[in-house]
């Protein structure tokens, strides 16, 4: 196998890795906010459920969670899981990352001084307006560094998709390396992850800079 065919084969994996990455962010960034808000719900039962969910997600390996999402329907309900691999993978990632983002959001929301809520309330803003106009923009600024960390972790975590034998770049590099007895695929994968994280860091830094217009 020449280097260019190797690169060509692996580029399909790179695309799949990017797919996991982007779909996970699209799902988990908003879902995390919903979880963070439910965590402060008026209803104790809702708060309890959310807390259990977060502690299970944080207390068990993502790899195990992926296996449960994938094989669970089969063992529990005897479903045919033939085309379930990719959905299970994305659900596993989204549900996992939403829990971590929820904790980040919660910390961010709690860090906003109560005076901001009170000033908005006295001015007559509704609860929703207060959150969307006053609180959330400030939360986003304060949590950006933690979100960056989490997103960089996600780039690397996408490799856990190999658990479900999903052919993303890490799985492919292992396979090609074994079949071709070559170290090259690992090197390519390593460079790919490194560049991906470099791009993530670059973009996040730009966003952070864009929010530096106030303190």
């Amino acid at each position: 196998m020449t280097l260019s065919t190797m690169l060509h084969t692996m580029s399909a994996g790179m695309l799949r890795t990017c797919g996991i990455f982007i779909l996970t962010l699209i799902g988990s960034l908003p879902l995390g906010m919903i979880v963070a808000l439910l965590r402060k719900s008026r209803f104790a039962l809702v708060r309890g459920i959310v807390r259990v969910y977060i502690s299970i997600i944080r207390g068990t390996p993502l790899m195990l969670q992926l296996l449960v999402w994938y094989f669970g329907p089969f063992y529990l309900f005897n479903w045919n899981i033939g085309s379930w691999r990719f959905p299970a993978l994305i659900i596993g990632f989204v549900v996992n990352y939403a829990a971590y983002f929820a904790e980040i959001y919660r910390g961010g929301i709690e860090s906003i001084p109560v005076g901001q809520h009170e000033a908005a309330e006295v001015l007559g803003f509704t609860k929703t307006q207060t959150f969307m106009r006053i609180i959330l923009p400030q939360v986003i600024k304060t949590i950006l560094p933690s979100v960056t960390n989490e997103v960089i972790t996600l780039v690397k975590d996408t490799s856990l998709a190999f658990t479900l034998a999903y052919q993303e770049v890490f799985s492919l590099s292992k396979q090609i390396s074994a079949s071709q007895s070559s170290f090259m695929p690992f090197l390519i994968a390593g460079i790919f992850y490194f560049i991906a994280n470099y791009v993530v860091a670059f973009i996040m830094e730009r966003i952070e800079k864009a929010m530096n217009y106030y303190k």
Partner: protein
Amino acid sequence: MILEMNHIEKHFGDLEVLKDISFGVDSGEVVSIIGPSGSGKSTLLRCATFLETIDGGEIIYMGDKAAHMNDQGQAVYVSHQELRRFRSYYGLVFQQFNLFPHYSVLKNLTDAPIHVQHRDRSEAEETAMELLGKMGLADRADAYPYQLSGGQQQRVAIARALAMKPQILFFDEPTSALDPELTGEVLNVIRQLAEEKMTMVVVTHEMSFAKAVSNRVIFMDGGLIVEQGDPAEVFDHPKEDRTKQFLRVFER
């Protein structure tokens, strides 16, 4: 009467913070509230602005009852929805300013008029610029709060409250968070508002200011109004021993 608060009672757990407080504020009146720390001054303002709910008594703005007393003397508020109507009657200036840091000065002044009162943007901006001019801050409209001194921030906060065109403005120790050399600029603004007959209730530790600017002084201690009246009377010839004692501490 702009505001009437009758037989107000408020407790936090077992702690009775307001015990049967009654007072009214007439249009154009400037009322100062003084008293030792913990006497319930902030709590009273927070009850008047619905940041805290009262346990007993009634709150009436412009003859419109926000909370009335039932047969047991407990306070019963109008519905959450109706309460919104009352928010346009008053403004509150906080000790810590509480400006919105992510908004420019101008947006701090226009956001609520536009999105709460649904006023026209250009009209809201015009009003805001007028107010900033009055505060001596016309050239800082595009600045962000962090770029301003404490005194400037507090003047923006006053302008933000005025931009809602309230009937009455409450101040909770508006100069306590400021360096001594910056208190003057804020007090001057309040003095100017008093001359324009803005109705105001000011909780303050600035005794000479209270004496010079207000039409009436209320001295609170232990959740009660101990004494109230003409500032010259209360400051120079206090009737109650507790008032005398409090003012003596201040003279030193």
